[in-house]
């Protein structure tokens, strides 16, 4: 049933991560779980690409990371949004909405078919 799931569009993973973390700090596995739940398994994310993305966002200072005890009692690396990250998320949400609207307009009116 691979065709039932979309591969995640290029460049949106970062935005989704920021969105999830805007609710509360989480560790990598937690973020993966949330992505799975929220997208209701419609979107397929490669769990392997999650970590490079997390580190990229941390490098850009949009996330900050710290090791602390997780719900199972083991130490896990928790990521949290920084102020810069929050601003970035707002900007990206805005961009996304504009893009989606524009695409919708084209679908509604454009095209000969």
């Amino acid at each position, binding site marked *: 049933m691979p065709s039932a799931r979309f591969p995640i569009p290029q460049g949106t993973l970062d935005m989704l991560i920021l969105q999830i973390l805007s609710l509360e700090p989480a*560790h990598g596995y937690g973020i993966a779980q949330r992505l799975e739940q929220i997208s209701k398994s419609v979107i397929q994310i490669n*769990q392997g690409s999650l*970590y*490079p993305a997390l580190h990229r966002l941390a*490098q850009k200072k949009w996330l900050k990371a710290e090791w602390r005890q997780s719900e*199972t009692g083991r*130490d896990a*690396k928790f990521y949290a949004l920084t102020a810069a990250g929050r601003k970035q998320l707002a900007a990206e949400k805005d961009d996304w909405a504009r893009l989606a609207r524009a695409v919708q307009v084209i679908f509604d009116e454009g095209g000969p078919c």
Partner: protein
Amino acid sequence: MLRPLLNWFRLRRLDNDLGRELQYHLDRRIDDLMRSGVPELAARRQARLEIGGLTQIHEEVRDVWLTRWLRDFAYDLRFSVRSFLRTPLFTATAVLSFALGIGATTAIYSLVDQVVLHALPVREPQRLVLFDWKGLTASVNAFGSYNLLSYPLCRDLQQQERFFDGVFCRAATTISLSTGGDSVPTAAEIVSGTYFPVLGVQPSIGRLFTSTDDDVPGASPVVVLSYDFWSTQFASAADVVGRKVLVNRHPMTIIGVAARGFRGIDIGEVPSLWIPAAMSADALPGFDQLLNRRVRWMQIFGRLRTDITPAEAQAGLQPWFKAMLAEDARRPEFPRITPDRQQRYLASALELTPAAQGHSPLRRRLSQPLWVLFGATGVLLALACMNVAGLFLARGSARGREIFTRLALGASRGRIGRQLLSDSILVALAGGLLGTLLAPAVMAALIAFLPREVAPNALQSSLNPRLLVFATLVSLIAGVLSGLAPAAQAGTRSLMAALTERAGGAAGGLRLRRIIVTVQIAVTVILVVGAALFGRTLFALIAKGPGFDTSNLISFGIDPVRNGYSRADADRLIQSIHREIGALPSVQSAAIVNNPLLTGGSWNIQMTIQADQRVTTDREVRINAVSPEFFTTLGARIVAGRDFVESDARPATEGGLCVAIVNEAFASRYFNGRSPLGGRVGLGTAPDTKTAVEIVGVSANISYRGVREEWEQVYFPLASCAASAGTFYVRIRGPRDAAIQSIRTIVHQADPTLPLGTFRTLDEQVSRSLTTERMLAALSAGFGALALLLSVVGLYGVVSFSVAQRTREIGLRMALGATRLATVWLLLRDALMMTTIGIAIALPTLWTLRRVVESQLYGVTPTDPTTLAAATVLLCTTTLLAALIPARRASTVNPADALRLE
């Protein structure tokens, strides 16, 4: 930009961290799967599959940490290291080439930096200027080294607040210092009270001088110690402030210690302590001319106001200066001089030069030789770079197929070029590291060549951050330069052509390598000629010698006035010591001289000569006062007239005569071959100068300042009442140590507290006075030899490479009937061509460079034909020998083997 570099250094920690993070992810996933009923093994497999390749994640995250270029660079570097380890001989040659070049450059640079470039460790040194009085002929009394001015002038300049934030003056001297025990000759600096405040130097402990310490002559017996002197002589005692020391037997109180690292403003004469100018009468025994405007003995420095340039200050000062000169010329004590000279005096001007590095006769003496040396090491480094470039080109050709295969597989040319560049940079850095480790030893050797005065020389042979930065920069530049040629080579050749070439083809870089070797030969010719010229200069000076027999001749100096003697007592003491030494069985004869020989210094004055007509000397004459035994003790011939006799030394009132002995240079310059005997001379050039001194003898030329100089000299008898200080020259018999011991005993018995300087043989002094020449000769010989070695290696490499490439051609030729000789010639022709062109480039270059070295040479011209011919022959022979070895090997090729090689 910085963050990736930072991450580079903590890569291991970041990797561990990521490992833990991923492990946590996996473990949680496995747990969750097992909880939902999946068996453990299957859960493990699924978790692994979901997350994908762990190594790949690591790599991707590393890309994030390090950014792309840094990671590529890291890979290049790793690749380079591996390939270097596979070819240790190549690597060692390249690294050593760089180490020699970079080590030598760093060592010389450290001296240039310390002697020439390094600004004083004071507040805003770039605002300091040095005053000089231009256009003033040396008619007034002056002692010291250069840029001499009077103390009252310094006080005048301190009033010029429109231009300066402060003005100070200083003079270097040697005092006899006792810190409780024996007196020791110690370097000191006599300074105005403004010295420390204007320089902006802070005390380590206690306080430093202020203007009040310099107000009333003789009223402030205080001294400031240097940090180094405090830590070595007083073991950094905290209670040193308030202690008394004896300066020339005068008690003075220590008031403080200067800041650490501040060593005065003359790198050649590092003072151990500072004395206020107000106390100069104590510091300079018998000197009471502090307030005399016409006694020039100090250097004056000013700190410019921030908004003033030296030119503005110089222009702005002139009106005041002119007025001051005019006023001075009207003073009653102003010397009577001709109107012409008065005119010149009034026209003289004050000049300001930037003095961020302070003032230093050592710098004057050394900066030109140092720059020449620095240039030579730069050339040496360039040679080393060329050699490495040549090596890389050869390696590049050998690796041609590897490189082109990589290109064919899609590597960009830029990427390959970068790889080659990272190769050479890596080698250069390794070489630089090795060179930097060698540098301190080279520096120590160089510093050992430099003259050492009483003062501990402040030149350091240790590495400092500036030097490390310099060495790193030089290494990087050398790496880039020597990597450029191979990298460019890789970037331009056609891929198809390269891949379809037969094995061992790749003619790549041979032409470039020929050019490199040609340039190397040209540079080598220049360096070898330089070495020959400096060597001949040194040998010519050694052969010339000081003009007298130096064997068994020793000298030492005493200065009783500095130990509190009156002039008359000092004279009596010196006379009695002289008599006793002369009577020793181990002493042949002993003489006293007012000014020591071969120290670089002399006593100079312009004179008036009365023979057939009255003339004045056109330049200063070097004069000295000597005891009657002087010429016999030194073994200097009297070529005409008579030697001094005992009665000459007596004052005129006791039947003494006013007589002088001139040297041959004086006779030939001013008497045109006529006998100077009977001529009369007088000191000074005023119209009313008395010419009361009769010339009674002519001596052979002997060295005064140094071996090199041949100058007009006049000797006066050391008047028995003027011998307050003196240098003894003693010709000894038998073993030297025994004689020195007896002399020591005599001086010690005469006055146990009298400091006795070291005994020096004249051989040693001649050798010391030739230190610069010896340094230049030794270093240029070293450079020449290294350069020769480098070009021989380069040439050998090119010829053997071309032999390897042309094996097939050679085999073919021989199969078709070429003789061995013809084969050898085929290859030698190549080498001969490079050598000839190299020499053809070098000779005109030498012609244009001749002015640079002219002043350093003696007894040989920069374009001496014999030297040039010898260097040419040397180069031709060595290069041909280097080429002959591979060429001969080529001629022994078996044609059948060569053709079968394909």
